[in-house]
């Protein structure tokens, strides 16, 4: 079965899956994040168009106000 890893968790992968689809599948509620796919940064404006390949390693780090 086609899978990707998101923050260490395996989820199933579908052809054409975008970063936004991955975030939706993970039910992440936080809006402000830094996303990398196989170590490559994906900017916020690309979430809806960037295709995540099969077997990808996706990192999602969420950002918190305060400084």
């Amino acid at each position, binding site marked *: 079965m086609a899978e990707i890893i998101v923050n260490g968790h395996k989820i199933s992968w579908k052809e054409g899956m975008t970063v936004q689809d991955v975030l939706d599948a993970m039910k992440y509620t936080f809006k*402000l*994040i*830094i996303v*990398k796919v196989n*170590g490559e*940064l994906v*900017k*916020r404006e690309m979430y809806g168009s960037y295709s995540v390949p099969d077997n990808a390693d996706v*990192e999602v*780090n*969420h*950002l*918190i*106000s*305060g*400084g």
Partner: protein
Amino acid sequence: MTDKLSRSVVAVAGCGGIGSNAAVSLVRAGIGELIIADMDIIEASNLNRQYFFADEIGLKKVFTLKSRLNSINQDCRITAYNVEIVREDVKKLFGAADILIEAFDNAESKQWLIEEWASLYPDRPVVSGNGLSGYGNFESIKIRRSGNIYFCGDGTSELADGLCSARVAIISNIQANLAIELLMKIKEAAV
């Protein structure tokens, strides 16, 4: 160590709780050049955690901090920008730096600053403050690494928990400490 750090340039984006405290430690450590940027003036509410004093209320943060930092180490070359930092200016303001300390207060700005820096300079580290509210709970503080992006903090505490000097200073100094460690590696590799 001092020799390597004296050849280093660090940019600090934001001169509030994180930025002012991190800058002090970097200058004490002997960083050769510091770039600081912030648009705010010093307010009474800042004094509970930021490296400012009551008689400085109403003054511009960057220029006041530059003066304090040069009182610590007059040899540190400090460029101070009293500007609103916007995405389009990241290269112009901070492009000379080996490392960026992300010291903004709100998460929206942290996001575009980290994205912009990591896109422009994928080989240069950015050290971000991420979750430093509240008090105590020391065990929750971590450094999480994603390539050359480093997130320092507990990763969870929200502003509603309030900002307290001790915890803000711990995390800003973790950022400064990490920046020093990374600079030593960068400068060693460059020899």
